């Protein structure tokens, strides 16, 4: 697991020289959590639960803190998450299975699509990609290169063309070729730009004309080093496209993935995948237990 500085080592430092969970320890814990981008609300929630436990059990040693924390964090993730997806698979009864990828600028949408295509293909599925970012310089070429790398077709039009029309073409092609999965790339957009968010809704709606219920999945990509703005991103993109799953990228950085906790606590959207690098293989299915283990450095 590549998630770098673990919670555990930081908590160990936070409680050094203490035997009992007291205000000092809780202050240090607050620092650890906030410094990991968990967010003030979720941090306070965790601390309150621990305080309640301390009040109930009278004496809580610092050695127990880890297991209590682990329980609380697992609970927080479980509370809002349906079952984990097992592998890079999709519902077999929907063909083609349509995935739309959205997010703010530069978070890793296009790269994640390349990685996903690779994994699906590894699992024996046929994949189509749709280059519906017709705005950003060389966005189509970038997806095209990923398509070549992985060996899957990319449906594209020229720069500046209507992204909804590209999405329509891509889903049509995928259907005509009886593909298993089609993944639609979209241009990065900040969630406070109303016109661009409306455009996204339009891209989403057009796909349903070819495959009923499409898109079956809308993945919101969040950069793992993003701070509290991630919450607003989750909120606004959900409003525009009914996001069904999250991908947290760049967790190979120093980011400790605290944003996963905060988001899981505040939204009912499951984390599907995590990005751990720039290569084709650097994408993993998000598994709660493994993630919690990695936070605690195991």
């Amino acid at each position, binding site marked *: 697991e590549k998630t*770098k500085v673990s919670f555990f080592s930081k908590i160990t430092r936070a409680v050094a020289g203490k035997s009992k969970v007291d205000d000092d320890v809780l202050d240090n814990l607050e*620092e650890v959590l*906030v*410094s*990991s*981008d968990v967010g*003030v609300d979720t941090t306070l929630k965790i601390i309150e639960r621990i305080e309640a436990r301390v009040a109930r059990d009278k004496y809580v040693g610092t050695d127990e803190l880890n297991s209590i924390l682990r329980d609380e964090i697992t609970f927080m993730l479980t509370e809002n998450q349906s079952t984990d997806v097992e592998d890079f698979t999709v519902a077999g009864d929907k063909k083609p299975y349509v995935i739309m990828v959205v997010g*703010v*600028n*530069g*978070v*890793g949408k296009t790269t994640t699509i*390349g990685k996903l295509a690779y994994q699906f293909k590894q699992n024996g599925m046929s994949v189509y990609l749709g280059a519906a970012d017709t*705005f*950003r*310089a*060389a*966005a189509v*070429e*970038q997806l*095209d*290169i*990923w398509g070549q*790398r992985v060996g899957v077709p990319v449906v594209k039009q020229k720069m500046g063309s209507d992204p909804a029309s590209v999405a329509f073409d891509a889903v049509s092609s995928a259907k005509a070729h009886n593909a298993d999965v089609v993944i639609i790339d979209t241009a990065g957009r*900040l*969630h*406070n*730009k109303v016109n661009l968010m409306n455009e996204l809704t339009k891209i989403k709606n057009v796909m349903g004309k070819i495959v009923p219920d499409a898109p079956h999945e809308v993945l919101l990509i969040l*950069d793992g*080093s*993003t*701070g*509290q*703005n*991630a*919450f*607003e991103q989750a909120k606004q993109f959900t409003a525009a496209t009914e996001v069904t799953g999250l991908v947290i990228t*760049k967790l*190979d*950085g*120093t*980011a*400790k993935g*605290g*944003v996963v906790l905060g988001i899981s606590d505040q939204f009912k959207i499951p984390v599907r995948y995590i990005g751990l690098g*720039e290569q084709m293989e650097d994408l993993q299915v998000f598994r709660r237990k493994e993630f919690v283990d990695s936070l605690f450095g195991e």
Partner: protein
Amino acid sequence: MFENLSDRLERSFKILKGQGKITEINVAETLKDVRRALLDADVNYKTAKEFTEKVKEKALGQDVLNAVKPEQMMVKIVHDELAILMGGTASDINIKGNPAVILMSGLQGSGKTTFSGKLANMLKSKRGKSPLLVAGDVYRPAAIEQLKVLGEQIGVPVYSEEDNKNPVKIAKNAIQYARQYGRDLVIIDTAGRLAIDQQMMDEIESIKNAINPQEILFVVDAMTGQDAVNTAKEFNDRLNFNGVVLTKLDGDTRGGAALSIRSVVDKPIKFVGTGEKLDAIDVFHPERMADRILGMGDVVTLVEKA
């Protein structure tokens, strides 16, 4: 997500009004509000703590009774302190030298390539420079193509070597090329890299050492969270960069990373990016940034009205 800080400050100062002076005890709640606002804005935990301490010192003993609007006095203290911290000495970009060389650095997706285009455009049209953009990212798919498209949009030539995977050599060759063809400004785009990626950090240090640029800019996404300080510190330790560029400020992020970075590496924020188009560049305004971090519109006019 949270109510306006100035409203909260105003509310907590209702209590102060009756008490004459700001004291350690009566200011505690207010400072907590300030600290919370800073954390919500992604100001680093330690930076926020130090900052509220500083504000406390400034505020203690201030005469509340004689102030027309004491709550706004507190807002002013907080705001001014922020602006001072982020401002300081003039921070123009150094484009002396022929050619002057500017090197971009930063994490993946922070906006380096786009900003290279914006800067070339600005220095060309406002300072009469003849820039050369250099494609020093040999890794990202279509990175060279991206820079070429931007160059075309602003009428600036792009130097690239399709088959060369060595950015140090590309950078050196590009400067040679600039001399030969009379380009007096060289802007080198580089691949995004993580601060913990030793190999990639070695690479950019080698580029620096090989070409000795006038100006190294660290490009950072304004939405970055608590880790901004570590990243900035590690890039600065390696490169001793000259300034910071804060991108994607057209979003609704508070941008507290600006304050954290400034207080940790003490390098000026020189420019901000405010959109995807190539004219969406501005110089950094500490006052506006202070307002933004506190989430309170235009405080300056608010205080002036008081």
